[in-house]
């Protein structure tokens, strides 16, 4: 109805303007609040009259109004209309806010599009303006705090590494919990392809975020079930930019910036180290056992343990001598620069979007950097009235200059373990000091390399035939070709490469072919009945080839390629793959413009299962009622939109090892004698893991959609878990995949969008929050553990299960632990203490709060993001706060909170050199990771049109952005977002379970950038 009114007023405005008597002129510009871009074709008219005009291509207008005119009304499709009192002004610039429930907004869904107002499922949308000029190399971080139900954990501040994305909680234990990524209709490679010895990489980092037009996250089953067996974890649909008929628009944007660690932990300096060491030694001195008998006193122990720690000129003056801040060596200032150039346009027959982009980032982690060059061409051609075709082609080269994994001595952040007494340089030679307590990471940084270079081609070709006005057939053939090359060199001077230098060269060839063919039938069956039906088939084939060679024995560190090696130590090549064959259908029925009835089904086959269990059926159904279209609510200004909806559906998960159902033997090598060893026991009955999800929600708008929002309650139940079940090792096998167990996720999502102030000064807010509760309801008696993480019935996935620290004995400073599984009895013996559930890495709730302000060309965006209730296992503190069980440097926070004398109610136990006091894994290492973060502040200024137009430009905006400006948390480590992904050879199960693991994990950067957007 609003649409009709709008159109009507539009016609009237155009038709009648000329007839009116006019007395004075008002001019101005109408821009959009999202991107600050001018809005051409917006209507401007005098309230209560038919006097009006429309804006020009550059958003400007000029209107002659009667002397008694009070108010101007501005409106545009998809925007909230706005009234401005004239109040004697002759220039009125207006910023229109987008209408969160715009009647005409189109949303991409699987195999089609739909009006947002007519959705029955739960879909979160993120727009181009939220993704553009993101400083992270991958777009997922833009979802953080913006999309309700989506929990994104950056994990580590290293660039281009895997990101943990959970949509409405984890729905699997052994199979993947990552969503399916579909770019322009084609499922793409999103899982790590990197070498086993380092952390998993993120192939999504190959996509240039500035090419993205929109992202839709399909959350409930009715939205996702069209992707059937692959949709249990939700689906992220990415749509890239396309051309529109009209003049060619050029866009240039660039951004440069610097970054620094968002936080420093602070380790002891020389004086503090000596003070604490003397104390720790004196607390145990007199021990008659090794190693104390070889030392006279604490300085003797330091002489024994550390080299060059005394001042060479004044050896007896302990206050002199090396005082190295190794944390500053590990974390440094980073930088980034980014350039994007694009052109788009076309005519009625042909439209194009062409974009070229480069980004170059230096991480805050010493030795880590990332760059990417990406070119894209999206082309659409209408061949005849009935036949159209087009293609998308995206060629990318990305390079990641990597450092070792978190759990390697050679990773930069493990330098913090080095005492401040270790000098950076050897005082005798002036070379980097190779006699540090552990490996001197600066030597690694200087000589080693680990470069990953990826050439990627996302491409697809489509043809669409309109058989009838109501019936079309579309075929999409896509390829995702990924060539990855990893070249490593480990210097002879390092532990990993000694004594003669080692090199590693690996190539990965990933080929994913996709063929989708489907009919779409769209028909108004009667004046009150609209039907849309999709029916089709999807084939996917994925082939992977791997080859790697390692060699050692290099003449010197100047030679880094294998050609110069004296000995090939390993050479291997291998391949694997999977295939899917699926049939799908969906019917949407709209009755009387207010009842929406949807049903879909997908029949899905996967090569990963036993022959008799390959196919699964995944149905869904949904119902929605646009109550605000009922007569009794129509044109109600208070409740302007109301749509309750309910959906139910079944999705699957098959993201397990490619041949998990098979009993297999693999090749083996015993010093040249080739053989075979068992690798898995058959599981012929293996089938899909199934998730049934019910969603009840309501979309609403108040005060002419000035306040809009969504409330959703969901209940996800996963049955027949594809579980990597532990079996007795005495069988010769340790695990087997079986369909065992159940888990559930229940949650609430709230989204609230408000337009607080409209007019020349505008202020709008968006708030979203998600509460999720994950619970394992049945594991058939299994207990799954991975390190200190456990999966247990009645508990959320991956609780921390270890000894519980009971505090410090005030009388003697002993660390105390609870002895039994329940009760208050304590013990000083860590090994005697019982294991308990001591923490939960899953958050209770998370969300974001964004405020946008605009005034006279200025725009300000302030976004907070928060996560509450997740615990973190800071394993590094086992050595960073152990009271010198060895010589590792300690954190200042520990030093300041130790037990020192009887009666102290200290946080940490008395330090005891070598023997430790509570040294080991316990809840002393587990902390609350809740945080609220000022994730983004951006301030932009759009230079007035009249100035830029003189230079022939359309629009120019300059901006400054700050990321991670502030983090409020009690977490004592580097970053409460820490979640070390472990190395790439970890099983999917262990990476699912091992959440919230901080092991010398790099913090997120704090980044400040300056940029420029130009359109012409």
């Amino acid at each position, binding site marked *: 109805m609003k649409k009709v009114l709008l159109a009507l007023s539009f016609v009237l405005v155009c038709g009648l303007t000329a007839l009116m008597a006019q007395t004075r002129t008002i001019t101005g510009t109408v821009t959009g609040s999202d991107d600050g871009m001018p809005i051409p074709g917006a209507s401007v008219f005098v309230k209560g009259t038919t006097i009006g005009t429309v804006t020009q291509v550059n958003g400007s207008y000029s209107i002659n109004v009667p002397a008694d005119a009070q108010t101007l009304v501005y409106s545009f499709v998809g925007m909230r209309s706005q009234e401005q009192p004239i109040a004697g002004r002759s220039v009125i610039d207006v910023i229109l806010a987008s209408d969160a429930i715009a009647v005409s907004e189109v949303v991409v869904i699987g195999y089609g599009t739909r009006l947002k107002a007519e959705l029955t499922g739960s879909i979160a949308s993120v727009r181009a303006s939220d993704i553009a000029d993101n400083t992270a190399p991958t777009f997922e971080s833009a979802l953080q705090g913006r999309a309700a139900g989506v929990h994104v954990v950056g994990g580590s501040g290293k660039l281009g590494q895997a990101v943990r994305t959970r949509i409405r909680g984890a729905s699997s234990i052994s199979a993947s919990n990552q969503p399916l990524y579909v770019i322009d209709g084609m499922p793409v490679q999103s899982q790590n392809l990197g070498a086993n010895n380092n952390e998993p990489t993120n192939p999504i980092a190959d996509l240039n975020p500035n090419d993205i037009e929109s992202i839709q996250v399909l959350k409930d089953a009715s939205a996702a079930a069209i992707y059937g067996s692959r949709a249990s974890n939700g689906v992220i649909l990415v749509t890239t930019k396309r051309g529109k008929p009209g003049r060619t628009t050029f866009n240039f944007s660039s951004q440069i910036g610097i970054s620094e660690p968002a936080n420093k932990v602070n380790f002891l300096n020389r004086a503090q180290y000596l003070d604490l060491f003397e104390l720790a030694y004196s607390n145990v001195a007199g021990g008659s056992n090794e190693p104390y008998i*070889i030392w006279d006193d604490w300085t003797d122990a330091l002489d024994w343990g550390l080299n060059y720690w005394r001042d060479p000129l004044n050896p007896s003056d302990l206050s002199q001598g090396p005082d190295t801040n190794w944390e500053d060596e590990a974390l440094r200032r980073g930088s980034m620069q980014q350039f994007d150039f694009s052109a788009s346009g076309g005519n009625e027959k042909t439209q194009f979007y062409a974009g070229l982009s480069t980004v170059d980032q230096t991480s805050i982690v010493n030795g880590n950097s990332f760059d990417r060059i990406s070119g894209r061409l999206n082309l659409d051609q209408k061949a005849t009235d009935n036949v159209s075709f087009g293609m998308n082609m995206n060629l990318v080269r990305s390079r990641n200059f990597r450092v070792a994994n978190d759990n390697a001595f050679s990773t930069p952040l493990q330098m913090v373990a080095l005492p401040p007494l270790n000098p950076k340089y050897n005082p005798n030679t002036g070379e980097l000091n190779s006699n540090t307590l552990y*490996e001197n990471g600066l030597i690694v940084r200087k000589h080693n390399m680990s470069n990953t270079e990826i050439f990627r081609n996302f491409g697809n070709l489509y043809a669409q035939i309109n058989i009838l006005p109501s019936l079309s*057939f579309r075929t999409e053939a896509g390829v995702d070709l990924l060539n990855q090359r990893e070249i490593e060199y480990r210097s002879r001077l390092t532990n990993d490469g000694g004594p003669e230098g080692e090199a590693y060269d690996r190539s990965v060839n990933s080929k994913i072919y996709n063929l989708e063919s489907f009919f779409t039938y769209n028909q108004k069956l009667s004046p009150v009945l609209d039907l849309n039906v999709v029916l089709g088939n999807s084939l996917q084939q994925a082939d992977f080839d791997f080859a790697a060679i390692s060699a050692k024995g290099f003449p010197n560190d100047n030679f880094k390629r294998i050609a110069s090696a004296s000995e090939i130590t390993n050479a291997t090549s291998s391949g694997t793959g999977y295939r899917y064959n699926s049939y799908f259908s969906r019917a949407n029925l709209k009755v009387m413009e207010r009842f929406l009835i949807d049903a879909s089904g997908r029949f899905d086959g996967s090569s990963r299962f036993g022959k008799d269990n390959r196919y699964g059926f995944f149905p869904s159904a949904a119902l929605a009622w646009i109550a605000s279209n009922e007569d009794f609510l129509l044109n109600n200004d208070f409740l302007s939109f109301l749509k309750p909806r309910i959906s139910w559906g079944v999705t699957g998960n098959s993201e397990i090892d490619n041949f998990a159902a098979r009993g297999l*033997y693999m090749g083996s090598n015993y*010093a040249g004698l080739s053989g*075979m060893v068992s690798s898995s*026991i058959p599981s012929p009955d293996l089938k899909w893991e199934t998730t049934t999800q019910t969603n009840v929600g309501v979309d609403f708008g108040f005060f002419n959609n000035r306040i809009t929002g969504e409330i959703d309650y969901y209940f996800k139940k996963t049955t027949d878990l594809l579980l990597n079940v532990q079996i007795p090792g*005495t069988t010769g096998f340790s695990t087997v995949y079986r369909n065992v167990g159940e888990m559930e996720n229940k949650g609430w999502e709230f989204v609230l969008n408000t337009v607080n102030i409209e007019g020349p000064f505008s202020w709008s807010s968006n708030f979203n929050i998600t509460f999720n509760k994950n619970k394992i309801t049945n594991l058939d008696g299994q207990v799954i553990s991975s390190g200190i993480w456990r999966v247990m019935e009645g508990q959320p996935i991956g609780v921390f299960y270890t000894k519980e620290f009971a505090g410090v004995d005030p009388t003697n400073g002993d660390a105390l632990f609870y002895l039994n599984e329940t009760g208050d009895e304590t013990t000083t013996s860590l090994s005697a203490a019982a294991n308990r559930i001591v923490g939960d890495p899953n958050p209770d709730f998370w969300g974001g709060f964004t405020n946008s302000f605009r005034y006279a060309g200025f725009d300000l965006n302030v976004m907070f993001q928060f996560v509450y209730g997740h615990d973190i296992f800071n394993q590094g503190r086992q050595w960073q706060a152990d009271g010198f069980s060895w010589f590792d440097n300690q954190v200042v926070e520990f030093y300041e909170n130790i037990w020192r004398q009887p009666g102290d109610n200290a946080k940490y136990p008395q330090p005891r050199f070598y023997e430790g006091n509570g040294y080991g894994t316990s809840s002393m290492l587990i902390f609350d990771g809740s945080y609220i973060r000022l994730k983004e502040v951006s301030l932009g200024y759009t230079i007035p049109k009249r100035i830029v137009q003189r230079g022939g430009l359309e629009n120019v905006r300059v901006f400054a952005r700050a990321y991670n400006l502030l983090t409020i948390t009690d977490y004592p480590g580097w970053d409460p977002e820490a979640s070390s992904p472990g190395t790439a050879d970890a099983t999917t199960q262990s990476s699912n379970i091992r959440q919230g693991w901080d092991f010398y994990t790099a913090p997120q950067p704090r980044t400040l950038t300056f940029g420029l957007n130009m359109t012409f």
Partner: protein
Amino acid sequence: MNAFINILIKELMKSSCIYMFLGLIGLGLVSYSCEGFLDIEPQQSVSNETVYDSHSGVVNALYGIYERIAGPQLYAGTSVFHSDLVGNSGELSWIGTFLGYRQMNWKSMDPNDATITNKWLRSYQAIDMANNVIENLEVVNEGDRARVEGEAKFLRGIIYFELVRFYALPYEFNQSNTQLGVPLVLTPTKSITNENLVSRATVDAVYVQILEDLNDAKTLLGGIGTTSGANGGRATSTVAAAFLARVYLSMGNWEAAANESNLVVSRFGGYAALHGDPRSAFNSDSYTSEDVFMINQNAQSNAGQSNDGITTFFASLPGLGRGDVYVSSSFFDLFESQDLRVQITDNPEIGSISDVPSMLYVGVGTDAGNVMSSKWGKYDANIPVIRLAEMILTRAEANFRNGSSIGAEPLADINAIRTRSNATALATLTLNDIRDERYRELAFEGHKLHDLRRFRGSVVAPSGSDWAGQVLEWNDGRLVLPIPQRELDVNENLVQNDAYIN
């Protein structure tokens, strides 16, 4: 729905149907081509059914067992390490940060420890493969059958010996030995049922099985060469006899131990096969005349050097090793000063282990400055498991305790070992002399715990241990590894060792 179909048909009738047909044909072609689309085979693996249905499959699986036991989980790592750390009384110092090993040195192990768990899993995987080989001998070519059976039984026997020595209380001479050993699994696993929830057999039953397997192997392998290096680092009847000598010795069957070790020594040609310098027995890429049984390693196949394998822990060389285990002063006191086995190379210019002519050196790599053993200094060198010197010492001990002189007088055997290393020949001999000579000769080779038990010794728990300063006798339960917790979690019939039950 009728309305929909009517409209569809009506519109189809009036418009050009050709596109519709094309579309249907397209979809039809796609579906047609889907026949077999989902049938793909792995490229690096074969189905388990195809392994044991041919001669080559069974032989390949046999070779696979060698690969399994050659890993750091067994003979290229824990077999040495677990014994020397648990049995350590301060002759070596553990300074590494790996908690599991530190706990072994403390004698307070954790049932969740990864190396303890992996040793168990790897052992039973190899046992299951051996069981499969033994069950499928009929497809093996007749000429090779005895050898394949012999090798499989040999491997099964030595793995059970390894398991029972670490995870169970020691065998006691002349006792019934009904203390819990390890589960005896002697048939291949086909599928997982309740029958797989096995219980622990008694120590006695496990030893009976070990003797049966090794004696069978010794007989079945009779046709294979018996000299040093025969059969390329795999089992021969001589190797089976050498392990039998170890087993009998630990059982207190002195006469049998003397006979088996004498067989090995005589087949190797006696003392003449000993190297002139003890250092020559180590860090070798090929067989040496002293190797009775060894793990073959090469650049492509080795226990690794970063966080695994003995070299990593024992070496402190430029770019090699973590220097976590060094030799303490109390070790030097065991030797006469001229003894080759206590000579130390102190040369900061050492580049690799080949620059170290002595048995000890001052470390120049990580944690430099400590005295390191040069037995483990090259990560892809072969790993001696049984050396001829051990067999000579075993013959001496068995004869001495038995009051016999099978093959040689005990004093002659001991002096042969001593004089090779420039130590003074002894005039008389006591049992403690034999014990000490074994330690001097075989230190850091994984004999510490087992010898301690046979000689009824004790260890002192070091500082940091839950029982620091306590004396732990040879049969103390705390010197036994715990049954891995993950195994107890999935098998209700398994019982944890007493010392680990709270």
